[in-house]
């Protein structure tokens, strides 16, 4: 067998095992909307950990983070800080979201806005921004699979056929099993990812330099500026670091899928305990950084940093091992991508189409429409991944600039009685509009500060100011006591 064949067979085997587990997870359950989207609200600490680790550690962590360590250097350290701090923030909001979610039967993030603020246009707008922010994140995952397969096949298979196969597989298992499939495939995916990260993080420096310490010593000698901020970039300094870490850690659980994952928990305490232990998983990423930094000296001058990690693996290890790393990488792209598609489809069917166009639809019809939407979304993201190219980190940060704008509406909605619907709507519109404007006009970062963060500050200011200027809402728009107040009665 040729090296490419050995390698591809290994990848295919791993993906097949993962997919089979995904199908089996849904076999003996009746898939109504509640089971498909929030797993019947029965996940304990272990399944929650798997689901959340499954959706958080994506191809971005694998190829994007190492790609930035290679091409940008120091600024990439923001990843270690934001993942850890994202869990710190989650400690204070997820249990509360879970509690109101159970009380009022929420399944999606948009439900939260609809029930808290009693305005279906606000809820629909939240949906649209959420779905739009998923597009770059999904595109990131598919691009990742394309990179893996083309490097693993020694450039024999193009990215387009690779991405097409990946889309077909993931649409199939989301279609069949819903959120439970994702939690179970994560078992295989996370185990493989930890093994892969440790072996390349230790192995690559060992093979080429004799150890991690020797590798950093060599790099500190040859390219000292690469290891601190702004690294190899002109404008990603400390102001950028602080603003980007704040933007992304506050926005971490504002992704509609991460937000909705809290509804699958058995209790609020489960989520609090989860927030305490999850940061440890971030240690895995440190090893991926070691491999990324080692690549700087092993393989200088690659134009696309996202390819660096796998190319160095291909050069340092036998083909079967490249196959295992590639298989782990492919699953880390497909597992999160399937949950993004699932969430976006549910949002579209339940929170956008039904309330605005077909109020009479039953839950079963919504579930059916959501499944059809899964197929459509798969095709749309595939098209985008084929026809555009950006680095993986830029795609991620674009999505974050959008979803973090939900933060004021969520956190003030939970903790501040005085916040009003008009204020949240105005702040969200201003935040999204300014983020989109700054990014499209290439003003990110602006004066060294992340554009999404500036938009978030504007958003917060507007929500606070307009809330104080508009009359307090202690009752919802039907004149009933606000559902939030019932729980204290």
């Amino acid at each position, binding site marked *: 067998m040729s090296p490419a064949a050995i390698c591809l067979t290994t990848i295919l085997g791993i993906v097949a095992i993962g997919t089979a587990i995904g199908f089996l997870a849904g076999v003996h359950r009746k898939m109504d909307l509640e089971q498909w989207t929030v797993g019947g609200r029965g996940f304990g600490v272990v399944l929650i950990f798997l689901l959340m680790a499954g959706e958080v550690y994506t191809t971005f962590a694998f190829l994007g983070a190492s790609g930035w360590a290679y091409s940008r250097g*120091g600024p990439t*350290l923001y990843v*270690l*800080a934001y993942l*850890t*701090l994202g*869990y*710190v923030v989650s*400690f*204070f909001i997820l249990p*509360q979201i879970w*509690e*109101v979610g159970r009380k009022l039967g929420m399944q999606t993030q948009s439900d939260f806005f609809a029930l808290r603020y009693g305005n279906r246009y606000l809820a629909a707008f939240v949906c649209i921004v959420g779905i739009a922010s998923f597009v770059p994140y999904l595109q990131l995952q598919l691009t990742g699979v394309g990179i893996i397969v083309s490097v693993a096949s020694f450039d024999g298979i193009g990215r387009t056929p690779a991405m097409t196969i990946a889309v077909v597989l993931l649409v199939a298992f989301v279609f069949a099993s819903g959120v439970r499939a994702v939690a179970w495939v994560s078992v295989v995916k996370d185990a493989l990812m930890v093994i892969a990260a440790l072996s390349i993080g230790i192995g690559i420096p060992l093979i080429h330099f004799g*150890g*991690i*310490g*020797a590798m*950093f*010593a060599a790099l*500190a000698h040859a390219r*000292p500026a690469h*290891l*601190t*901020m702004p690294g190899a970039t002109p404008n990603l300094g*400390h102001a950028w*670091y*602080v603003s980007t*870490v*704040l933007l992304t*850690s506050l926005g971490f659980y504002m992704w509609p899928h991460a937000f909705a994952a809290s509804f699958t928990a058995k209790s*609020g*305490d489960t989520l*609090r*305990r989860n*927030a*305490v*232990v999850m*940061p*440890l998983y*971030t*240690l895995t990423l*440190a090893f991926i*950084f070691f491999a990324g930094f080692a690549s700087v000296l092993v393989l200088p001058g690659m134009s696309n940093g996202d390819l660096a990690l796998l190319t160095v693996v291909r050069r340092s290890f036998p083909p079967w091992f490249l196959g295992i790393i590639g298989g782990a990488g492919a699953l880390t792209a497909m597992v999160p991508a399937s949950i993004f598609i699932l969430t976006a489809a549910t949002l579209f069917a339940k929170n956008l189409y039904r309330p605005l166009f077909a109020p009479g639809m039953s839950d079963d019809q919504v579930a059916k429409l959501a499944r059809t939407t899964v197929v459509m979304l798969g095709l749309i993201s595939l098209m985008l991944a084929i026809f555009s190219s950006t680095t993986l980190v830029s795609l991620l940060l674009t999505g974050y600039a959008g979803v973090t704008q939900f933060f004021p509406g969520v956190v003030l909605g*939970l*903790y501040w009685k005085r916040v009003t619907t008009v204020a949240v709507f105005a702040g969200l519109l201003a935040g999204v509009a300014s983020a989109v404007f700054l990014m499209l006009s290439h003003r990110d970062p602006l004066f060294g500060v992340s554009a999404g963060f500036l938009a978030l500050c504007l958003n917060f200011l507007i929500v606070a100011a307009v809330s104080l200027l508009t009359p307090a809402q202690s009752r919802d728009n039907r004149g009933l006591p606000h559902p*939030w107040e019932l*729980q204290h009665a």
Partner: protein
Amino acid sequence: MKRPSLAALLLALIPFTAMCFSVSLWDRIDPMLLGLPFNLFWLICWIVLSCVCMWGAYRAEAARHRQNGPPA
């Protein structure tokens, strides 16, 4: 919604200060510890120390929930 306790909020502020706001104090290569540049070493330490802080916050919140009876 019941606000979190002051103790939990202060404990959560520690990792934010250490990993985010204080970046200009620790973003350097020397001294290299355990073979790692200082900034990387610092962040890795704080990943673990953040868990410790949040465990403290968990204890603070859990004690409060016990006092007020099980959460509704």
